Protein backbone atom coordinates (compact mmCIF):
# COMPACT_ATOMS: atom_id res chain seq x y z
CA UNK A 1 0.00 0.00 0.00
CA UNK A 2 2.85 2.34 0.86
CA UNK A 3 4.44 1.77 -2.48
CA UNK A 4 1.30 2.37 -4.42
CA UNK A 5 0.61 5.77 -2.92
CA UNK A 6 4.28 6.58 -2.68
CA UNK A 7 4.21 7.39 1.01
CA UNK A 8 7.92 6.77 1.21
CA UNK A 9 10.38 7.04 4.04
CA UNK A 10 11.26 10.64 3.19
CA UNK A 11 7.71 11.88 3.62
CA UNK A 12 7.36 10.05 6.93
CA UNK A 13 10.67 11.53 8.09
CA UNK A 14 9.52 15.01 7.12
CA UNK A 15 6.21 14.55 8.94
CA UNK A 16 8.04 13.33 12.03
CA UNK A 17 10.35 16.36 11.94
CA UNK A 18 7.39 18.71 11.50
CA UNK A 19 5.67 17.16 14.52
CA UNK A 20 8.74 17.15 16.77
CA UNK A 21 10.11 20.61 15.95
CA UNK A 22 7.37 22.68 17.71
CA UNK A 23 8.34 21.13 21.06
CA UNK A 24 11.55 23.14 20.84
CA UNK A 25 9.77 26.42 20.14
CA UNK A 26 10.19 28.83 23.03
CA UNK A 27 7.82 31.56 21.90
CA UNK A 28 5.64 32.85 19.07
CA UNK A 29 8.62 34.18 17.20
CA UNK A 30 9.88 30.65 16.58
CA UNK A 31 6.46 29.74 15.20
CA UNK A 32 6.49 32.77 12.97
CA UNK A 33 9.85 31.82 11.44
CA UNK A 34 8.70 28.23 11.05
CA UNK A 35 5.46 29.24 9.31
CA UNK A 36 7.28 31.58 6.93
CA UNK A 37 9.78 28.77 6.23
CA UNK A 38 6.93 26.39 5.41
CA UNK A 39 5.21 28.88 3.10
CA UNK A 40 8.49 29.67 1.34
CA UNK A 41 9.09 25.92 1.00
CA UNK A 42 5.72 25.62 -0.73
CA UNK A 43 6.56 28.29 -3.31
CA UNK A 44 10.00 26.75 -3.81
CA UNK A 45 8.57 23.28 -4.46
CA UNK A 46 6.52 24.71 -7.32
CA UNK A 47 9.42 26.79 -8.55
CA UNK A 48 11.72 23.79 -8.34
CA UNK A 49 9.32 21.81 -10.50
CA UNK A 50 9.54 24.58 -13.10
CA UNK A 51 13.29 25.18 -12.83
CA UNK A 52 14.76 21.88 -11.71
CA UNK A 53 12.49 19.44 -13.54
CA UNK A 54 11.27 21.30 -16.60
CA UNK A 55 14.43 23.43 -16.88
CA UNK A 56 12.67 26.81 -17.16
CA UNK A 57 14.11 29.70 -15.13
CA UNK A 58 11.77 32.21 -13.52
CA UNK A 59 12.91 35.41 -11.85
CA UNK A 60 9.32 36.51 -11.31
CA UNK A 61 7.76 34.12 -8.84
CA UNK A 62 7.95 36.53 -5.92
CA UNK A 63 5.80 38.90 -7.95
CA UNK A 64 3.33 36.14 -8.85
CA UNK A 65 3.02 35.16 -5.18
CA UNK A 66 2.61 38.82 -4.22
CA UNK A 67 0.01 39.57 -6.88
CA UNK A 68 -1.94 36.42 -5.99
CA UNK A 69 -1.83 37.45 -2.34
CA UNK A 70 -3.07 40.95 -3.20
CA UNK A 71 -6.01 39.59 -5.21
CA UNK A 72 -7.12 37.32 -2.35
CA UNK A 73 -6.64 40.05 0.26
CA UNK A 74 -8.38 42.82 -1.70
CA UNK A 75 -11.35 40.56 -2.39
CA UNK A 76 -11.74 39.60 1.25
CA UNK A 77 -10.93 42.96 2.86
CA UNK A 78 -12.62 45.35 0.42
CA UNK A 79 -15.40 43.26 -1.02
CA UNK A 80 -16.38 41.09 1.93
CA UNK A 81 -15.69 37.79 0.21
CA UNK A 82 -14.67 34.99 2.61
CA UNK A 83 -10.89 34.50 2.64
CA UNK A 84 -10.98 30.94 1.38
CA UNK A 85 -13.16 31.92 -1.56
CA UNK A 86 -10.91 34.94 -2.12
CA UNK A 87 -7.93 32.62 -2.40
CA UNK A 88 -9.91 30.42 -4.76
CA UNK A 89 -10.68 33.36 -7.06
CA UNK A 90 -7.04 34.46 -6.81
CA UNK A 91 -5.92 30.99 -7.87
CA UNK A 92 -8.29 30.96 -10.85
CA UNK A 93 -7.29 34.49 -11.91
CA UNK A 94 -3.59 33.81 -11.56
CA UNK A 95 -3.91 30.52 -13.47
CA UNK A 96 -5.47 32.32 -16.40
CA UNK A 97 -2.88 35.08 -16.15
CA UNK A 98 -0.02 32.57 -15.96
CA UNK A 99 -1.39 30.60 -18.89
CA UNK A 100 -1.65 33.67 -21.11
CA UNK A 101 1.80 34.90 -20.09
CA UNK A 102 3.37 31.46 -20.43
CA UNK A 103 2.69 31.13 -24.16
CA UNK A 104 5.00 33.88 -25.44
CA UNK A 105 7.42 33.75 -22.48
CA UNK A 106 8.25 30.07 -22.44
CA UNK A 107 9.23 30.18 -26.09
CA UNK A 108 12.32 32.03 -24.87
CA UNK A 109 15.30 30.23 -23.42
CA UNK A 110 18.14 30.77 -20.99
CA UNK A 111 18.98 34.38 -20.22
CA UNK A 112 16.13 35.67 -22.36
CA UNK A 113 13.59 33.67 -20.37
CA UNK A 114 15.16 34.88 -17.12
CA UNK A 115 14.95 38.50 -18.25
CA UNK A 116 11.38 38.18 -19.54
CA UNK A 117 10.10 36.69 -16.28
CA UNK A 118 12.03 39.35 -14.42
CA UNK A 119 10.39 42.01 -16.60
CA UNK A 120 6.87 40.69 -15.93
CA UNK A 121 7.68 40.54 -12.21
CA UNK A 122 8.95 44.10 -12.02
CA UNK A 123 5.97 45.44 -13.97
CA UNK A 124 3.67 43.69 -11.47
CA UNK A 125 5.53 45.20 -8.53
CA UNK A 126 5.43 48.69 -10.07
CA UNK A 127 1.68 48.39 -10.69
CA UNK A 128 1.13 47.28 -7.07
CA UNK A 129 3.12 50.30 -5.88
CA UNK A 130 1.39 52.84 -8.09
CA UNK A 131 -2.26 51.77 -7.86
CA UNK A 132 -2.46 52.88 -4.25
CA UNK A 133 -6.24 53.30 -4.17
CA UNK A 134 -6.57 49.57 -4.50
CA UNK A 135 -3.38 48.31 -2.87
CA UNK A 136 -2.46 50.97 -0.33
CA UNK A 137 0.66 51.76 -2.36
CA UNK A 138 4.12 51.26 -0.94
CA UNK A 139 2.77 51.39 2.63
CA UNK A 140 0.86 48.19 2.03
CA UNK A 141 -2.52 47.31 3.51
CA UNK A 142 -3.75 45.49 6.57
CA UNK A 143 -5.50 42.16 6.14
CA UNK A 144 -8.55 40.73 7.91
CA UNK A 145 -8.21 37.56 9.95
CA UNK A 146 -8.33 34.22 8.18
CA UNK A 147 -11.45 32.14 8.63
CA UNK A 148 -12.45 28.90 6.98
CA UNK A 149 -16.20 28.24 7.18
CA UNK A 150 -16.44 30.18 10.41
CA UNK A 151 -13.36 28.60 11.99
CA UNK A 152 -10.86 31.33 12.75
CA UNK A 153 -7.13 30.85 12.52
CA UNK A 154 -5.70 33.03 15.23
CA UNK A 155 -2.98 31.19 17.17
CA UNK A 156 0.45 30.43 15.76
CA UNK A 157 -0.03 26.74 16.42
CA UNK A 158 -3.12 26.63 14.21
CA UNK A 159 -1.21 28.30 11.41
CA UNK A 160 1.73 25.99 11.90
CA UNK A 161 -0.47 22.90 11.64
CA UNK A 162 -2.25 24.26 8.56
CA UNK A 163 1.00 25.07 6.76
CA UNK A 164 2.69 21.82 7.80
CA UNK A 165 -0.21 19.73 6.50
CA UNK A 166 -0.26 21.74 3.30
CA UNK A 167 3.47 21.19 2.82
CA UNK A 168 3.34 17.43 3.40
CA UNK A 169 0.33 17.14 1.10
CA UNK A 170 2.05 19.20 -1.63
CA UNK A 171 5.23 17.13 -1.39
CA UNK A 172 3.22 13.92 -1.56
CA UNK A 173 1.41 15.14 -4.69
CA UNK A 174 4.64 16.40 -6.13
CA UNK A 175 6.45 13.09 -5.57
CA UNK A 176 3.65 11.24 -7.31
CA UNK A 177 3.61 13.74 -10.15
CA UNK A 178 7.36 13.54 -10.68
CA UNK A 179 7.29 9.75 -10.79
CA UNK A 180 4.32 9.67 -13.15
CA UNK A 181 4.45 9.83 -16.96
CA UNK A 182 3.95 13.58 -16.54
CA UNK A 183 7.17 13.81 -14.52
CA UNK A 184 9.07 11.82 -17.10
CA UNK A 185 7.83 14.19 -19.80
CA UNK A 186 9.16 17.12 -17.76
CA UNK A 187 12.55 15.52 -17.38
CA UNK A 188 12.70 14.83 -21.09
CA UNK A 189 11.98 18.52 -21.73
CA UNK A 190 14.75 19.48 -19.34
CA UNK A 191 17.10 17.08 -21.13
CA UNK A 192 16.37 18.28 -24.63
CA UNK A 193 13.29 20.11 -25.87
CA UNK A 194 14.03 19.13 -29.45
CA UNK A 195 14.29 15.43 -28.60
CA UNK A 196 11.08 15.63 -26.57
CA UNK A 197 9.36 17.32 -29.49
CA UNK A 198 10.56 14.70 -31.91
CA UNK A 199 8.96 11.86 -29.95
CA UNK A 200 5.63 13.62 -30.13
CA UNK A 201 5.53 15.51 -26.86
CA UNK A 202 3.74 18.84 -27.04
CA UNK A 203 6.57 20.68 -25.29
CA UNK A 204 4.96 24.10 -25.20
CA UNK A 205 1.78 22.63 -23.70
CA UNK A 206 3.63 20.83 -20.90
CA UNK A 207 5.80 23.84 -20.12
CA UNK A 208 2.65 25.95 -19.77
CA UNK A 209 1.07 23.43 -17.41
CA UNK A 210 4.12 23.39 -15.13
CA UNK A 211 4.32 27.17 -15.20
CA UNK A 212 0.65 27.52 -14.26
CA UNK A 213 1.02 24.89 -11.53
CA UNK A 214 3.98 26.68 -9.98
CA UNK A 215 2.13 30.01 -10.10
CA UNK A 216 -0.91 28.41 -8.43
CA UNK A 217 1.23 27.12 -5.56
CA UNK A 218 2.89 30.54 -5.27
CA UNK A 219 -0.53 32.22 -5.19
CA UNK A 220 -1.79 29.95 -2.39
CA UNK A 221 1.38 30.43 -0.33
CA UNK A 222 1.45 34.18 -1.01
CA UNK A 223 -2.21 34.59 0.05
CA UNK A 224 -1.71 32.51 3.20
CA UNK A 225 1.34 34.56 4.10
CA UNK A 226 -0.68 37.78 3.80
CA UNK A 227 -3.49 36.40 5.98
CA UNK A 228 -1.00 35.02 8.49
CA UNK A 229 0.98 38.23 8.90
CA UNK A 230 -2.18 40.39 8.75
CA UNK A 231 -0.41 42.71 6.35
CA UNK A 232 0.69 42.83 2.73
CA UNK A 233 2.99 45.27 0.97
CA UNK A 234 4.52 45.49 -2.52
CA UNK A 235 7.81 44.22 -1.09
CA UNK A 236 6.23 40.74 -1.22
CA UNK A 237 6.16 41.17 -4.98
CA UNK A 238 9.55 42.85 -5.28
CA UNK A 239 12.45 41.83 -7.49
CA UNK A 240 14.50 40.92 -4.42
CA UNK A 241 11.81 38.53 -3.18
CA UNK A 242 11.78 36.77 -6.56
CA UNK A 243 15.56 36.52 -6.44
CA UNK A 244 15.40 35.20 -2.89
CA UNK A 245 13.08 32.38 -4.01
CA UNK A 246 15.34 31.39 -6.91
CA UNK A 247 18.36 31.43 -4.61
CA UNK A 248 16.47 29.17 -2.17
CA UNK A 249 15.78 26.62 -4.91
CA UNK A 250 19.31 26.65 -6.32
CA UNK A 251 20.92 26.71 -2.90
CA UNK A 252 18.88 23.73 -1.79
CA UNK A 253 19.49 21.86 -5.02
CA UNK A 254 17.76 22.10 -8.39
CA UNK A 255 15.69 19.07 -9.28
CA UNK A 256 15.77 17.65 -5.78
CA UNK A 257 12.40 17.44 -4.06
CA UNK A 258 13.70 18.17 -0.59
CA UNK A 259 16.33 20.60 -1.85
CA UNK A 260 13.68 23.31 -2.22
CA UNK A 261 12.56 22.76 1.37
CA UNK A 262 16.12 22.77 2.73
CA UNK A 263 16.97 25.94 0.78
CA UNK A 264 13.78 27.71 1.86
CA UNK A 265 14.25 26.85 5.54
CA UNK A 266 17.91 27.86 5.60
CA UNK A 267 17.41 31.15 3.78
CA UNK A 268 14.39 32.05 5.92
CA UNK A 269 16.27 31.43 9.15
CA UNK A 270 19.60 32.86 8.02
CA UNK A 271 18.61 36.58 7.98
CA UNK A 272 17.19 36.13 11.51
CA UNK A 273 20.52 34.73 12.70
CA UNK A 274 22.37 37.52 10.95
CA UNK A 275 20.38 40.34 12.57
CA UNK A 276 22.91 40.35 15.40
CA UNK A 277 25.52 41.41 12.84
CA UNK A 278 23.36 44.45 12.02
CA UNK A 279 25.18 46.42 9.32
CA UNK A 280 27.04 43.38 8.06
CA UNK A 281 23.85 41.40 7.39
CA UNK A 282 23.62 41.99 3.63
CA UNK A 283 27.35 41.52 3.21
CA UNK A 284 27.39 38.13 4.93
CA UNK A 285 24.21 37.04 3.13
CA UNK A 286 25.82 37.75 -0.23
CA UNK A 287 29.07 36.09 0.80
CA UNK A 288 27.23 32.91 1.81
CA UNK A 289 25.44 32.73 -1.55
CA UNK A 290 28.76 33.14 -3.38
CA UNK A 291 30.39 30.52 -1.17
CA UNK A 292 27.66 27.93 -1.74
CA UNK A 293 27.59 28.52 -5.50
CA UNK A 294 31.37 28.06 -5.72
CA UNK A 295 31.74 25.02 -3.50
CA UNK A 296 28.32 23.37 -3.83
CA UNK A 297 27.05 24.38 -7.27
CA UNK A 298 24.50 21.56 -7.18
CA UNK A 299 23.09 22.74 -3.89
CA UNK A 300 23.10 21.62 -0.31
CA UNK A 301 20.84 18.61 -0.97
CA UNK A 302 23.49 17.17 -3.28
CA UNK A 303 26.01 17.25 -0.45
CA UNK A 304 23.53 15.42 1.77
CA UNK A 305 22.97 12.82 -0.95
CA UNK A 306 26.72 12.35 -1.36
CA UNK A 307 27.15 11.75 2.34
CA UNK A 308 24.19 9.39 2.48
CA UNK A 309 25.47 7.57 -0.60
CA UNK A 310 28.84 7.05 1.03
CA UNK A 311 27.32 5.82 4.27
CA UNK A 312 25.19 3.26 2.48
CA UNK A 313 28.12 2.19 0.33
CA UNK A 314 30.26 1.56 3.41
CA UNK A 315 27.49 -0.55 4.98
CA UNK A 316 27.64 -3.06 2.16
Amino acid at each position, binding site marked *: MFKRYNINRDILTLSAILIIVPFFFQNDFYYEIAIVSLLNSLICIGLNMLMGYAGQVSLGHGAFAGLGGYIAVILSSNYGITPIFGIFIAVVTMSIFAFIVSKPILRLKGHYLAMATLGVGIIISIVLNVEDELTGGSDGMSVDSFTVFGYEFSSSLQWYVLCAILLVFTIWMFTNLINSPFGRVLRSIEGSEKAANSVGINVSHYKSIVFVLSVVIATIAGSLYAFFSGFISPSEASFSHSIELVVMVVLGGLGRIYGAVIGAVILTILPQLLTSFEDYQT*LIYGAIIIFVMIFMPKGIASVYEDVRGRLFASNK
Partner: protein
Amino acid sequence: MIEFFGFLLSGVTVGFVYALVGIGFTVIYNSSGIINFSQGEFVMAGGMSTVFLLKAGLPLGVSFILAILITSMIGIVLYKLIAFSKNSSQISLIILTLGFAIFLRGLAEVVFDKELHTMPSFVGDGAFDMFGTVLTYQSILIMIVSIVIVVALYLFFKKTKTGQAMMAASINVDAAKLMGINIKKILMINFALSAAIASIGGVLLTPITSTNYEVGIMLGLKGFAAAIIGGLGSPFGAVAGGLVLGILESLIAGYVSSEYKDAVAFVALLAILFFMPGGIFGNTKAQRV
Protein backbone atom coordinates in the same frame (compact mmCIF):
# COMPACT_ATOMS: atom_id res chain seq x y z
CA MET B 1 7.34 71.74 -28.77
CA ILE B 2 9.80 73.33 -26.33
CA GLU B 3 8.61 70.84 -23.74
CA PHE B 4 9.20 68.02 -26.19
CA PHE B 5 12.82 69.05 -26.80
CA GLY B 6 13.36 69.29 -23.07
CA PHE B 7 12.16 65.72 -22.56
CA LEU B 8 14.15 64.59 -25.56
CA LEU B 9 17.40 66.06 -24.25
CA SER B 10 17.05 64.66 -20.74
CA GLY B 11 16.09 61.33 -22.30
CA VAL B 12 19.20 61.30 -24.45
CA THR B 13 21.38 62.14 -21.42
CA VAL B 14 20.06 59.29 -19.29
CA GLY B 15 19.95 57.09 -22.38
CA PHE B 16 23.70 57.40 -22.81
CA VAL B 17 24.24 56.18 -19.25
CA TYR B 18 21.94 53.19 -19.89
CA ALA B 19 24.00 52.62 -23.01
CA LEU B 20 27.22 52.53 -20.99
CA VAL B 21 25.73 49.97 -18.60
CA GLY B 22 24.43 48.00 -21.57
CA ILE B 23 27.86 48.01 -23.22
CA GLY B 24 29.30 46.66 -19.97
CA PHE B 25 26.85 43.75 -20.13
CA THR B 26 27.70 43.16 -23.77
CA VAL B 27 31.47 43.08 -23.19
CA ILE B 28 31.17 40.34 -20.54
CA TYR B 29 28.43 38.44 -22.38
CA ASN B 30 30.34 38.35 -25.64
CA SER B 31 33.50 37.03 -24.09
CA SER B 32 32.10 34.58 -21.57
CA GLY B 33 28.43 34.02 -22.30
CA ILE B 34 27.65 35.16 -18.76
CA ILE B 35 24.92 37.65 -17.91
CA ASN B 36 26.44 39.64 -15.10
CA PHE B 37 23.72 40.68 -12.67
CA SER B 38 26.18 42.76 -10.65
CA GLN B 39 26.72 45.19 -13.52
CA GLY B 40 24.43 47.72 -11.83
CA GLU B 41 26.51 47.45 -8.67
CA PHE B 42 29.60 48.39 -10.70
CA VAL B 43 27.77 51.60 -11.63
CA MET B 44 26.98 52.19 -7.96
CA ALA B 45 30.56 51.44 -6.92
CA GLY B 46 31.88 54.01 -9.39
CA GLY B 47 29.56 56.77 -8.21
CA MET B 48 29.84 56.05 -4.49
CA SER B 49 33.64 55.69 -4.54
CA THR B 50 34.01 59.04 -6.29
CA VAL B 51 31.69 60.75 -3.81
CA PHE B 52 33.61 59.42 -0.81
CA LEU B 53 37.06 60.02 -2.27
CA LEU B 54 35.97 63.61 -2.91
CA LYS B 55 34.79 63.85 0.69
CA ALA B 56 38.19 62.56 1.80
CA GLY B 57 39.64 65.67 0.20
CA LEU B 58 41.06 64.29 -3.04
CA PRO B 59 40.74 66.40 -6.17
CA LEU B 60 37.98 65.49 -8.62
CA GLY B 61 40.21 64.06 -11.36
CA VAL B 62 42.11 61.82 -8.95
CA SER B 63 38.89 60.59 -7.31
CA PHE B 64 37.41 59.84 -10.72
CA ILE B 65 40.40 57.78 -11.84
CA LEU B 66 40.74 55.99 -8.49
CA ALA B 67 37.04 55.11 -8.56
CA ILE B 68 37.41 53.57 -12.01
CA LEU B 69 40.44 51.59 -10.84
CA ILE B 70 38.64 50.37 -7.72
CA THR B 71 35.65 49.23 -9.78
CA SER B 72 37.90 47.49 -12.30
CA MET B 73 39.50 45.61 -9.42
CA ILE B 74 36.01 44.57 -8.26
CA GLY B 75 35.37 43.32 -11.80
CA ILE B 76 38.55 41.25 -11.65
CA VAL B 77 37.51 39.82 -8.28
CA LEU B 78 34.21 38.72 -9.83
CA TYR B 79 36.09 37.08 -12.69
CA LYS B 80 38.36 35.25 -10.23
CA LEU B 81 35.31 33.95 -8.35
CA ILE B 82 33.67 32.74 -11.55
CA ALA B 83 36.90 31.14 -12.77
CA PHE B 84 37.37 29.52 -9.39
CA SER B 85 33.85 28.04 -9.30
CA LYS B 86 34.56 26.01 -12.48
CA ASN B 87 30.92 25.02 -12.89
CA SER B 88 29.33 25.44 -16.24
CA SER B 89 25.68 25.51 -15.19
CA GLN B 90 24.17 28.75 -16.39
CA ILE B 91 21.73 29.11 -13.54
CA SER B 92 24.35 28.73 -10.83
CA LEU B 93 26.50 31.36 -12.56
CA ILE B 94 23.49 33.70 -12.61
CA ILE B 95 23.03 33.09 -8.89
CA LEU B 96 26.74 33.66 -8.32
CA THR B 97 26.61 37.11 -9.93
CA LEU B 98 23.38 37.87 -8.04
CA GLY B 99 25.14 36.89 -4.81
CA PHE B 100 28.07 39.10 -5.76
CA ALA B 101 25.65 41.99 -6.34
CA ILE B 102 24.14 41.50 -2.87
CA PHE B 103 27.64 41.29 -1.43
CA LEU B 104 28.67 44.57 -3.10
CA ARG B 105 25.52 46.28 -1.84
CA GLY B 106 26.31 45.04 1.67
CA LEU B 107 29.90 46.18 1.28
CA ALA B 108 28.77 49.65 0.21
CA GLU B 109 26.51 49.82 3.27
CA VAL B 110 29.46 49.05 5.53
CA VAL B 111 32.27 50.97 3.80
CA PHE B 112 30.11 53.96 2.85
CA ASP B 113 26.62 54.43 4.28
CA LYS B 114 22.92 54.24 3.41
CA GLU B 115 22.44 57.93 2.70
CA LEU B 116 21.70 59.57 -0.64
CA HIS B 117 24.74 61.40 -2.02
CA THR B 118 25.36 63.83 -4.78
CA MET B 119 28.38 65.72 -6.00
CA PRO B 120 29.10 68.89 -7.94
CA SER B 121 29.04 68.72 -11.70
CA PHE B 122 32.51 68.37 -13.26
CA VAL B 123 32.01 71.18 -15.69
CA GLY B 124 30.06 73.66 -13.59
CA ASP B 125 26.33 74.18 -13.44
CA GLY B 126 26.07 76.18 -16.63
CA ALA B 127 23.81 75.40 -19.54
CA PHE B 128 23.28 76.23 -23.19
CA ASP B 129 20.02 77.47 -24.57
CA MET B 130 18.82 75.07 -27.20
CA PHE B 131 15.48 74.96 -29.03
CA GLY B 132 14.15 77.19 -26.26
CA THR B 133 15.13 74.67 -23.59
CA VAL B 134 18.34 74.20 -21.65
CA LEU B 135 21.09 71.69 -22.16
CA THR B 136 23.33 71.48 -19.11
CA TYR B 137 27.09 71.18 -19.44
CA GLN B 138 26.92 67.92 -17.50
CA SER B 139 24.56 66.45 -20.11
CA ILE B 140 26.92 67.48 -22.87
CA LEU B 141 29.80 65.91 -20.95
CA ILE B 142 27.87 62.64 -20.60
CA MET B 143 27.14 62.57 -24.32
CA ILE B 144 30.72 63.36 -25.33
CA VAL B 145 32.30 60.86 -22.92
CA SER B 146 29.87 58.12 -23.99
CA ILE B 147 30.55 58.68 -27.67
CA VAL B 148 34.31 58.75 -27.02
CA ILE B 149 34.05 55.45 -25.10
CA VAL B 150 32.07 53.79 -27.90
CA VAL B 151 34.53 54.95 -30.56
CA ALA B 152 37.51 53.99 -28.41
CA LEU B 153 36.03 50.53 -27.83
CA TYR B 154 35.43 50.11 -31.54
CA LEU B 155 39.02 51.04 -32.35
CA PHE B 156 40.29 48.86 -29.52
CA PHE B 157 38.45 45.79 -30.78
CA LYS B 158 39.30 46.39 -34.44
CA LYS B 159 42.82 47.81 -34.40
CA THR B 160 44.76 46.58 -31.36
CA LYS B 161 46.15 43.10 -31.00
CA THR B 162 44.58 42.56 -27.58
CA GLY B 163 41.23 43.75 -28.90
CA GLN B 164 41.41 41.40 -31.86
CA ALA B 165 42.34 38.55 -29.55
CA MET B 166 39.27 39.40 -27.45
CA MET B 167 37.07 39.37 -30.56
CA ALA B 168 38.55 36.03 -31.60
CA ALA B 169 37.92 34.59 -28.16
CA SER B 170 34.29 35.68 -28.28
CA ILE B 171 33.77 34.07 -31.69
CA ASN B 172 35.33 30.71 -30.91
CA VAL B 173 37.06 30.01 -27.63
CA ASP B 174 38.71 26.76 -28.71
CA ALA B 175 40.06 28.13 -31.96
CA ALA B 176 41.38 31.18 -30.09
CA LYS B 177 43.13 28.92 -27.60
CA LEU B 178 44.75 27.00 -30.45
CA MET B 179 46.03 30.28 -31.87
CA GLY B 180 47.90 30.80 -28.63
CA ILE B 181 45.53 33.37 -27.12
CA ASN B 182 45.56 33.42 -23.35
CA ILE B 183 41.82 33.07 -22.68
CA LYS B 184 42.08 33.61 -18.96
CA LYS B 185 43.89 36.88 -19.42
CA ILE B 186 41.42 37.97 -22.10
CA LEU B 187 38.44 37.22 -19.86
CA MET B 188 40.03 39.09 -16.97
CA ILE B 189 40.58 42.16 -19.14
CA ASN B 190 36.97 41.92 -20.31
CA PHE B 191 35.61 41.90 -16.77
CA ALA B 192 37.84 44.82 -15.76
CA LEU B 193 36.89 46.74 -18.90
CA SER B 194 33.20 46.12 -18.38
CA ALA B 195 33.42 47.28 -14.77
CA ALA B 196 35.39 50.37 -15.78
CA ILE B 197 32.79 51.39 -18.40
CA ALA B 198 29.95 50.89 -15.92
CA SER B 199 31.75 52.91 -13.24
CA ILE B 200 32.29 55.81 -15.67
CA GLY B 201 28.53 55.79 -16.24
CA GLY B 202 28.00 55.85 -12.49
CA VAL B 203 30.32 58.80 -11.93
CA LEU B 204 28.81 60.82 -14.78
CA LEU B 205 25.25 60.23 -13.62
CA THR B 206 25.81 61.09 -9.94
CA PRO B 207 25.66 64.91 -10.31
CA ILE B 208 22.32 64.56 -12.12
CA THR B 209 20.41 61.88 -10.21
CA SER B 210 22.55 61.38 -7.04
CA THR B 211 23.51 57.95 -5.76
CA ASN B 212 23.18 55.55 -2.84
CA TYR B 213 24.05 51.93 -2.15
CA GLU B 214 20.89 50.58 -3.80
CA VAL B 215 20.96 52.66 -6.97
CA GLY B 216 22.61 49.82 -8.91
CA ILE B 217 19.58 47.51 -8.94
CA MET B 218 17.41 49.58 -11.28
CA LEU B 219 20.33 50.95 -13.31
CA GLY B 220 21.65 47.45 -13.90
CA LEU B 221 18.27 46.12 -15.01
CA LYS B 222 17.65 49.07 -17.31
CA GLY B 223 21.12 48.74 -18.78
CA PHE B 224 20.34 45.13 -19.46
CA ALA B 225 17.02 46.09 -21.04
CA ALA B 226 19.00 48.51 -23.24
CA ALA B 227 21.35 45.72 -24.29
CA ILE B 228 18.43 43.41 -25.17
CA ILE B 229 16.46 46.11 -26.98
CA GLY B 230 19.48 46.88 -29.13
CA GLY B 231 20.29 43.21 -29.63
CA LEU B 232 22.36 41.36 -27.07
CA GLY B 233 25.95 41.02 -28.17
CA SER B 234 26.25 44.20 -30.18
CA PRO B 235 27.85 47.26 -28.50
CA PHE B 236 26.26 49.60 -31.02
CA GLY B 237 22.95 47.91 -30.32
CA ALA B 238 23.43 48.69 -26.64
CA VAL B 239 23.91 52.37 -27.48
CA ALA B 240 20.84 52.43 -29.70
CA GLY B 241 18.86 50.51 -27.08
CA GLY B 242 19.99 52.86 -24.32
CA LEU B 243 18.99 55.95 -26.31
CA VAL B 244 15.61 54.50 -27.31
CA LEU B 245 14.97 53.55 -23.70
CA GLY B 246 16.09 56.89 -22.26
CA ILE B 247 13.98 58.92 -24.68
CA LEU B 248 10.93 56.67 -24.32
CA GLU B 249 11.16 56.85 -20.54
CA SER B 250 11.50 60.60 -20.51
CA LEU B 251 8.57 61.11 -22.89
CA ILE B 252 6.31 58.73 -20.95
CA ALA B 253 7.27 60.41 -17.67
CA GLY B 254 6.54 63.81 -19.21
CA TYR B 255 3.35 63.14 -21.10
CA VAL B 256 1.73 60.06 -19.60
CA SER B 257 2.63 59.17 -16.04
CA SER B 258 5.80 59.76 -14.05
CA GLU B 259 4.84 56.92 -11.71
CA TYR B 260 5.01 54.36 -14.49
CA LYS B 261 8.34 55.69 -15.76
CA ASP B 262 10.29 52.72 -14.41
CA ALA B 263 7.92 50.25 -16.08
CA VAL B 264 8.77 51.57 -19.55
CA ALA B 265 12.07 49.70 -19.71
CA PHE B 266 10.43 46.38 -18.90
CA VAL B 267 7.44 46.78 -21.18
CA ALA B 268 9.86 47.63 -23.99
CA LEU B 269 12.01 44.67 -22.98
CA LEU B 270 9.06 42.27 -23.19
CA ALA B 271 7.84 43.74 -26.46
CA ILE B 272 11.27 43.24 -28.03
CA LEU B 273 11.63 39.72 -26.63
CA PHE B 274 8.20 38.66 -27.89
CA PHE B 275 8.11 40.31 -31.29
CA MET B 276 11.70 41.06 -32.27
CA PRO B 277 13.89 38.66 -30.29
CA GLY B 278 17.03 39.69 -32.15
CA GLY B 279 16.67 43.29 -31.01
CA ILE B 280 17.04 46.34 -33.22
CA PHE B 281 20.62 45.67 -34.25
CA GLY B 282 21.29 42.14 -33.10
CA ASN B 283 21.83 39.21 -35.34
CA THR B 284 21.68 36.66 -32.57
CA LYS B 285 18.60 34.55 -32.09
CA ALA B 286 16.72 34.68 -28.80
CA GLN B 287 16.89 30.93 -28.69
CA ARG B 288 20.63 31.08 -28.36
CA VAL B 289 21.48 29.76 -24.92
